[in-house]
C-alpha cells in the first residue's frame, strides 16, 4: 500500500531511512497513523535522533502488545509527539518470546520510567538500564504477567496471598 504521508512526516521518514537504513524495517500507515518498525538495538539512537533533530520532544506513552506468534512475539510501541509541528509518530520494536529485553529510554525522557514499568508488569518485557525496574500495578510477589494472552481472564486462584476476610478466625 503506498504511503500517504504529509510533507513533514515524509521528510522525517526520508531522513530516517537515509541515516538508519539498516535499522528501519518497515514503515506503514493504519487508520491515518504512521508506524515505523525499527530494530530493537537501535531504539535509543533513533529516539534520540527524533527528539534532537525533528523535535519529537514529548513521549506520550510506551506500551507493549502480545502478538502471540512463534517469532517476535512481543511488541513495544513508543508514541511520540512533536508539539512544534503537530505531528505524531509511532515507533515499534519486535522482541522474541524468550527473555524479551530492550534498552530503556529513561535517559531521554524521565516519563518513560513508569510507562516501562507498566510494560514490564503486564508483559514481562525487561528494560535494561532502567533506574527502578519494579512491578507497578501488581505486587512484587506476583509471578505472572497478566496481559500475556495465555493468562486466563479470571486470573489464577491462589496466586496472590490476600488478607483474611474473617479476621476473628485465625
Amino acid at each position, binding site marked *: 500500500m503506498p504511503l500517504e504521508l504529509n510533507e513533514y512526516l515524509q521528510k522525517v521518514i526520508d531522513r530516517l531511512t537515509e541515516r538508519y537504513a539498516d535499522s528501519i524495517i518497515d514503515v506503514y500507515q*493504519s*487508520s*491515518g*497513523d504512521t*508506524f515505523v518498525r525499527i530494530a530493537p538495538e537501535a531504539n535509543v539512537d533513533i529516539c534520540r535522533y527524533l527528539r534532537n533533530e525533528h523535535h519529537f*520532544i*514529548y*513521549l*506520550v*506513552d510506551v*506500551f507493549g*502488545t*502480545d502478538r502471540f506468534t512463534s517469532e517476535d512475539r512481543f511488541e513495544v*510501541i513508543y*508514541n511520540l*509527539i512533536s*508539539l512544534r509541528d*503537530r505531528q*505524531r509518530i*509511532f515507533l515499534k520494536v519486535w522482541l522474541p518470546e524468550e527473555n524479551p529485553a530492550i534498552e530503556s529510554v529513561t535517559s531521554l*525522557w*524521565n*516519563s*518513560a*520510567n*513508569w*510507562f516501562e514499568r*507498566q510494560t514490564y508488569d*503486564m508483559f514481562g518485557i525487561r528494560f535494561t538500564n532502567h533506574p*527502578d525496574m*519494579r*512491578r*507497578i*500495578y*501488581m*505486587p*512484587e*510477589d506476583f509471578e505472572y504477567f*497478566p*496481559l500475556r494472552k495465555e*493468562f486466563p*481472564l479470571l486470573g489464577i486462584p491462589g496466586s*496472590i*496471598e*490476600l*488478607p483474611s476476610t474473617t479476621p476473628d478466625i485465625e
Partner: protein
Amino acid sequence: MPTKSIKDKVKPTFFKEHQEKLYQALEDKHTTVEIMKDKDPLGTEMILNMGPQHPATHGVLRLTLQLNGEIIEKAKLDVGYLHRGVEKIAENKTYQEFMPYTDRMDYLSPYSNNVALCTAVEKIANVEVPERAHYIRMIGCELARISSHLLWLGTLVMDAGAVSFFIWTFREREKLYDIFDQLTGHRFTVSHARIGGVANDITDTAMAMIKDFANEFPKEITDWHKLLDRNRIFFDRNEGVGVLKTEEALEKGAAGPTLRGSGYAYDMRTFAPYARYDEVEFEVPTRLEGDNLARYYCRMEEMHESIHIIQQCLDKLPKGPVRTDNAKQAYPSKDEVYYSMEGMIHDFMMTDTGICPPEGAEAYHAVEAPKGELGYFIQSDGTGHPWRMKIKAPSFANLQILEYILDGEMVADTVVIIGGVDPVMGECDK
C-alpha cells in the same frame, strides 16, 4: 546510634517482597546525588507512610515519604490498589460492551471517557458520525469537564483548609448531575455515547437545563474568584508549592492542566481537533509558573472556556439524526428494533458480534479529558473484540511527576500538591 536500613525497621505482613522492594527503591532513590547520612543525632528522620486509605489522597494512592523534620527528602508512590485489569477485560468484550468500564476509569468525568472510546473505534472502523451527535458529544464533554474541575476545586480548597467551599462546588455539581440525568438517563456513570453517535437526542427539558446552567454558572465562578483570588491563606498554601518547571514538564511527561500550568499550550482539542472543536472558538489557558496556583488559574479559566464552548454548541446545534444509519456499524434506533424484523436482527447482531474493524488495523485516537490527553490505542484482529486495547491515562502520567515535585517540599503541603495535580486512581490503576 547509626540509622538502620528502612527494611530492618518495617515488618510487612502482606506482599512482603513488594513492600521490601518499595522501601528499597525509596532508599535507593537518587543515591547518586545524595549520600545517605550515617548518623541522625536529633532523630529527625523518619519514614512516613501515607495511604492507601487516606481521605486526602483522592482514592487509594499510597505514598512513602522519607522525612527530615518537616521536609520531604524523597517520595515514592505505590499505585495499583485499584487495578482491575480493564485492558484484559477489553480483549474479551465487544467494543460497545466495554463502554460501561470506561465510565469507571475516570469516574469524575465519565462522558469524556465514553467519547474517547467511541472516537477511537470510529477511527479504526471508519464510521461516520452525524453532525448533531458531534455537537451533543461536545456539550457532554464540556459539562463533564466542568463537573470534574468542580470536584477538583472543592477538594483543593478543602485540602488547603476551607471545608465549607466544598459544599458550594458540590451544589453546582448536583445541578450537573441533574442535567446528565435528563440528557443521558443516568446521573453518574452515563454511558451515553454510542459507536456511530450517541444513545438519544437532547430532550427539551435537558436543553432548558443546560441553557440555565450556562447562564447561571459564570456568576458562580466570579464569586469563587472573589473569594479565592485575594485570599491570603489560599495564596500562601498554593503559591510556589509543587513547582514543575517549564523546562522539565515535557520530559517528566505531565499532561493536561498540569502541563499547561507549566507553560505548554498542549490541548488535544487544538492539537488534533476531534468532533467539531475546529468549528468553535475557545482559548487554551496557559501559565508559566508551574506551581499549584498556576494549575488553579488554568482550570478556573478552562471552566470559563467550557461554558463558552457549550453556548456556541447550543447556538450551532444542527438538526438531524444522532446516530449513523448503517446497521453494520451502529445500533439501529429503538423504533426499528421494536417494529421491524430486520431492526431486531441487526440489534441482536450488534450486541452479539458488534462492529468488526478490518483485520490488522491499528489506530490511536486521543481526546482532551479534564485530566489531560486520554488516548485509546486499538489493535484489531478482524473480530468484534479488540486484540489489544491500550488506554493512555492522563492521571498515570500526572502521578508520575508527583515523585519529582514532592521532593524538597514540606510534609504539610503533600495533600495540597496531590489536590493540585488532581489524580483519579480509577484511571491511573486501570
